[in-house]
């Protein structure tokens, strides 16, 4: 009888734990730690393509370098980069000494004439493979390429960048 009550209590404790587990999952935030259970991604600095004057005619590409915040302009238009760009900077916290792949995806801005062509994570592709350090940390920088056309909608636009951390 006593054993039965103990097991009932344990079952209830497990159920409560499960509810708490899901209830306490962090909400997505632009700042602060995300994820849970020890593997997290923290934004140190947001990805900003900066201020761009749209071309009067034609199209320009603007390449934001992941490692140094520089922006190169290409294409046939007369668009101009005014400054204010910064590569995204994120801190990964996970299981020490584990190999991981970090992948980034960016949705297009909801503005005419503004396209995200490429996204770069610590290199020329959107994926980066590394081994977390002994403290379980890794840092990543994110850049990319956007195309701006003459019909680009003037104003400040936002989009979402998704960062996925996968253990190998």
């Amino acid at each position, binding site marked *: *009888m006593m*054993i*039965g009550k103990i*097991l*009932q209590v*344990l*079952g209830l404790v*497990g*159920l409560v*734990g*499960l509810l708490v*587990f*899901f209830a306490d999952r962090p909400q*997505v935030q*632009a700042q602060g730690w*995300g*994820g*849970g*259970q020890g*593997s*997290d*991604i923290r934004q140190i600095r*947001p*990805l*900003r*393509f*900066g*201020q*761009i*004057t*749209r*071309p*009067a005619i034609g199209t320009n590409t603007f390449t934001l370098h992941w490692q140094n915040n520089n922006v190169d302009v290409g294409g046939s238009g*007369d668009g*101009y980069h*005014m400054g204010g760009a910064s590569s*995204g900077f994120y801190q990964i916290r*996970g*299981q020490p000494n584990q190999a991981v792949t970090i992948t980034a995806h*960016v949705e297009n*801005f909801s503005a005419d*004439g*503004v396209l995200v062509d490429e996204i770069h994570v610590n290199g020329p592709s959107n994926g980066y493979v590394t081994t977390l350090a002994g403290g379980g940390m890794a840092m990543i920088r994110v850049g990319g390429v*956007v195309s*701006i056309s003459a019909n*680009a*909608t*003037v*104003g*400040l*636009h*936002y*989009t*979402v*960048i*998704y*960062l*996925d951390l*996968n*253990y190998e």
Partner: protein
Amino acid sequence: LGIDVTNVETKRAKRSVVFGTIVAALCLASTAAMADEVDEEFQASITISLNLEIMEQNEIDFGTIGRPSVGSNTITLDWDSGDIEIGGGGDAFYVEGAQNGRYRVRGPRDEDIVVTATIGSFGVPGIEVEETIVEGQSGSFLAQLNPSGMFFAHIGGVLTLTPDAPAGLHTANFYITANYP
């Protein structure tokens, strides 16, 4: 009766064991899934501004000038007022019709810009363009677009007129550019 009670408790205990095991498995499975993958989303931004645009509002015009019969004169079109001032040793005189140039530059608000202007050659003897004046300065002017993204550039210039200038209407090209410094 006591035996029956024991049986009920045993069944409850078994159900509890099964339930607890399922809950524990779910927790472990969830934990394992979280350990293998973390997906997060953050914000990225971009600001699109208008490129610099120039629109002519007033064309530059030195008006009608009576050429000197002897000597030479400088004809200065004031960049701000559009008035004509005549200097030099000749006897040239101003008749009418002069106006300064006025050009609207549009672009990102509060941005610094450089406006550069040049009056080209009239292509005839006796009329030489000495200087193009932008907002009181020779050739170019560092300006700032106002909070509405506008700047109005006023243009004047200086000509030298000599007796061999042919009578009639003469035109020259005018070039104005706006850039970021």
